[in-house]
């Protein structure tokens, strides 16, 4: 075999390198293994479960601190701030709470998260989500005296809207921790760029005027979000459907979608208005207030008599391992913790107005003004129960017919607008076409094979089945999509586009 090449003779060095590599691998492996183990097993390692009904201070003695888990839809800055403030509070000390773990997860995963016993408190996400949890039996009533006392400080109703969910047993299942109104945020600079006037009602958002930039600049002036992804946008669509009635409501929703860029999440709409990608975006109030802080050409507008006040709940979840500590946190959020909302980067309206009497509260007279304005805003009558009866059906019908086939809708609408603006059709003809474009769909019900129209009664009648039967749901969505495409294409053809 010949002498080995000279560079292979440095055996001891080679061996050293080899050992180093091996040691490295082992060390990396051990570190990795340990860290992964820690990551996975960090859920409830420090505390022992306490008996729910034992009314003792601090969860079975003070030996080890209690850590409570909060699932939330709040932006993380709110949660970080709340954690910081709460851990210094009297209540945290009294109930020996040494840390809170907050976690933001999509609403779709909440049920599994709660049933697997990983959450103590649910906080933020809108009444719709909390009512869903309530009907699924995932919420537990408040029992701790401090929590009940704190809940009593929150008005039962604000502008006719309940701030608490009281079960048939008379117990409180959720309490609003903040209130919100719904409206739209405009970017005045972009409105000027596009020569648009400031909209003041939902109907203004559906106007051909707001559609003009589509023709002139090839750009949608409005931004909305997919209701299946946004609880706040869902609420706004429900408001429109109740304010204008089913038929006219869908007309406005359809034309809004035709005028709009449809974003996935409500936060995207806010950012698009701030950046000026769009001139108007429909938002919940505090997104509007934030936009105003970030970009001075933005303004939040509450459509008069067309908005409602919503309570954004907090609740104890069923199966909490630390129900008392969890309720102590709830009590804190409803009282002292209301100060979190006053942070200049958060800007939300408190559910417990007494926070405005604190020194911090007196510093935010602007927020107090917004609060009073919200109370005074002629809130419309809103039927919560009715909205819940067709909610999921409405969300998916919206998505199937207005979001997923948005370019078909837009093509027809643009062809119509072009004819209208050029004077090729009269306004009577235009209105006739609009009625045709926006009328509730006729389609074949996949379960009965019958031709049906998408009326309010129909939506309510199928809602149960729609939620529970996935294949029915998929078939229905396909049918809606096909019918919608057919309608939009027919209109485009009629208009010769």
């Amino acid at each position, binding site marked *: 075999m010949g002498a080995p090449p000279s560079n292979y003779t440095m055996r001891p060095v080679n061996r050293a390198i080899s050992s180093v590599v091996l040691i490295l*691998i082992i060390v990396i492996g051990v570190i990795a293994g340990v860290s992964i183990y820690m990551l996975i097993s960090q859920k409830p390692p420090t505390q022992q479960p306490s008996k729910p009904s034992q009314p003792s201070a601090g969860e079975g003695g003070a030996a080890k601190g209690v850590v409570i888990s909060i699932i939330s839809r709040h932006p993380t800055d709110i949660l970080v701030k709340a954690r910081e403030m709460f851990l210094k509070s009297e209540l945290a000390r009294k109930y020996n709470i040494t840390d809170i773990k907050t976690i933001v997860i999509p609403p779709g995963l909440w049920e599994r998260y709660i049933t697997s016993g990983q959450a103590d408190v649910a906080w933020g996400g809108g009444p719709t989500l909390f009512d869903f949890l309530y009907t699924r039996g995932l919420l537990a009533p408040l029992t701790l005296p401090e929590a009940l006392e704190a809940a009593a400080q929150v008005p039962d109703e604000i502008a006719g809207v309940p701030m608490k969910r009281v079960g048939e047993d008379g117990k409180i299942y959720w309490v609003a921790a903040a209130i919100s109104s719904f409206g739209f945020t405009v970017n005045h600079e972009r409105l000027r760029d596009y020569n648009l006037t400031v909209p003041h009602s939902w109907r203004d958002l559906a106007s051909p005027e707001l559609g003009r930039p589509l023709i002139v600049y090839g750009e949608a002036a409005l931004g909305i979000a997919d209701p299946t992804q946004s609880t706040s946008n869902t609420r706004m669509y429900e408001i429109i459907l109740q304010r204008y009635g089913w038929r006219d409501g869908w007309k406005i929703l359809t034309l809004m979608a035709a005028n709009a860029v449809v974003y996935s999440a409500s936060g995207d709409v806010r950012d698009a208005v*701030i950046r000026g990608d769009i001139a108007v975006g429909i938002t919940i109030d505090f997104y509007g207030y934030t936009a105003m802080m970030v970009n001075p050409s933005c303004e939040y507008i509450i459509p008069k008599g067309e908005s409602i006040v919503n309570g954004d709940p907090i609740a104890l979840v069923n199966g909490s391992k630390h129900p008392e500590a969890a309720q102590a946190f709830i009590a804190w959020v409803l009282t002292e913790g209301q100060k979190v909302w006053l942070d200049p980067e958060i800007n939300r309206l408190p559910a417990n107005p007494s926070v405005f009497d604190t020194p911090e509260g007196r510093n935010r007279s602007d927020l107090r003004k917004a609060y009073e304005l919200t109370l005074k805003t002629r809130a419309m009558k809103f039927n919560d129960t009715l909205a819940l009866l067709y909610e999921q059906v409405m969300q998916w019908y919206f998505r199937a017919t207005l979001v997923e086939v948005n370019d078909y809708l837009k093509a027809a609408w643009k062809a119509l607008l072009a004819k209208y603006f050029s004077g090729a059709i009269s306004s009577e003809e235009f209105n006739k076409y609009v009625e045709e474009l926006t009328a509730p769909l006729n389609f074949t019900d996949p379960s009965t094979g019958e031709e049906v129209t998408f009326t309010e009664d129909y939506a309510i009648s199928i809602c149960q089945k729609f939620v529970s039967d996935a294949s029915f749901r998929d078939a229905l969505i396909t049918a809606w999509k096909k019918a919608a495409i057919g309608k939009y294409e027919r209109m485009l053809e009629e208009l010769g586009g």
Partner: protein
Amino acid sequence: MGGSAASKLRKLSFYLDPVLIAQLLLPTTILFLFLVAPLLLVAYVAGQYSIFDVLSDPTYFSLRPRGQPVLILRTSFRGREVTIIKVVGVSFGAVINSLINAVIVTAGATVLGVAVAFVFARYEFPGKTVLRILATMPLLLTPFINVFVIRKLFDWRDGIISWFVCDVLGLPLRLGVDSIAGVAVAQIMTFFPLVYLNVYSSMVNIDPSLEEQAENLGAKGFRLFRTVTLPLSLPGLAAGSALVFIFSLEDVAAPIVFNEKRFISYQVFSKFIEATTGQLSPVAAILALILLLLALTIFASIRRYVMLRQYAMLSRGGRWKPRMRKLSAKGLLAIYLVLAPLLVFLAFPQLGVIIYAFSERWTGPLPQGFTLKNLWSIVEDPLVSRAVINSLTYSLSALALIILLGISASYVIARARVPGVDLLDLLVTSPVAIPGLVIAVGYFYFFTTFFRGTPLDPIVSGPSLLLVLAYSVRRLPFTARAVFAGLQQVHIALEEASLNLGAGRLRTLVNIVIPLISLNLLSGALVSFVYCMSETSTSITLGGLGGVGESHQAPITFIMLDYLNRVGGPHIVASLGVLLISLQLLVITLVNVVFKQRYAYVGV
């Protein structure tokens, strides 16, 4: 017959000592469990649903184009009569859009890449090093935020190009690229260096005598390029453009940033995100399957160039002095007036990310204010610092597995002459072509079905373990490839000598083989590591299953996507981009300068 069979068996038994068997079984088992099985499950779930429902849905599959590709509008904007030219592209439904887009991106990237490679491979000129660095800059991965900058470049209202043309030059013209066309442009800008680098290495390895012979026979100029140089560069060209095709198909960052839902990748991604009550829509499985099949088809066609065994042949060469020419004055002018600005433009997104990270505001066309606050927030913001620590943990954990698997698999493939080794080779290299989104969908089904309620269920325990496995599988090829190249250069006689002198297989491996390939191993491992840190597809899907909170389990890229949509967030995302850029530069320097190894520029 019998004799040959017996001798075959004897040969086989020589290789099948316990160490080699373990080395064969370990990667095979892991890859089968955590790559093949989840993908099969995707196919199975897809099979439960009628694929016809997807193909008959015009939002997925339509033969009639929708929309106008280019809008030309004469109108008044900000008190001035202007012509707006907006390229937006047409839609044929998500499936066809993804395909057409991949074709366009591949074509664009190929033209750019070949041109740049040719200039660098054949001409010498002052400033070449700077331009070469510029040309590779787009490969520095800065998920999402580079596309964010590209979008800023092409916005017709406040974009940098429109601002320059209209407000600086004073022309009554506003230019924009958006929607489907925006995605294509962003991908061409990001992926063209893949073609450039592959073609470049092919070109410098062409035997100069071949071109000289052609010249002697009278060929010159474009004819020489078309008939000799280009055909000889085909292996690099094929590998580079096929990778661009696959990356374009699976890229989800550009569609997300352009809010362009009409692509398969976006559809799979959004179906994953909205997986209500832990159930993933079966349509996601069908679309994932389509994505997988398309990518695998392309992969099969370039398999020869990317598999370990063949890779060794490709990297050989460079023994001669490449043909370099000085450029004429006209040529130099072309370089400085056309190529240099073009390369600056193509590298702009990465430069823009750095500018973004250090600026206070960037709402109009130009950034304002210098600040270190954004960079500091990586440490200060508990969610961000947590994500950095998570990514480091996952990447290091994955690295341990990758090194183990990489050494085992490469050694078996290089040394053991046993049947089925080709299959292992295929298994180890295929993750290059398998879209991460498909792996994410597969893992979701796999772990929530078979491990429901156990610590391996991502919804119960969070995604840590899944991410480590996904990273290991996806980034294995880089290390395996480097180790294999090292093994090719180590003569087998050295091992045989050790075996003859009585050392066992393990001892030989530890004392002889690993020290000899340690530099290759380290380089490969570093590359794997850095691409784990910047891994996007599985990170933004699986990574979110544990939610976001101060003890969350999400990796860097998930937080980058999450922060993109919050007020002031893009600046923090850009800081994370700068962090990733620094990490990549460090690794490139270590690999190229310290270890003197070739750096494998692949990865999305």
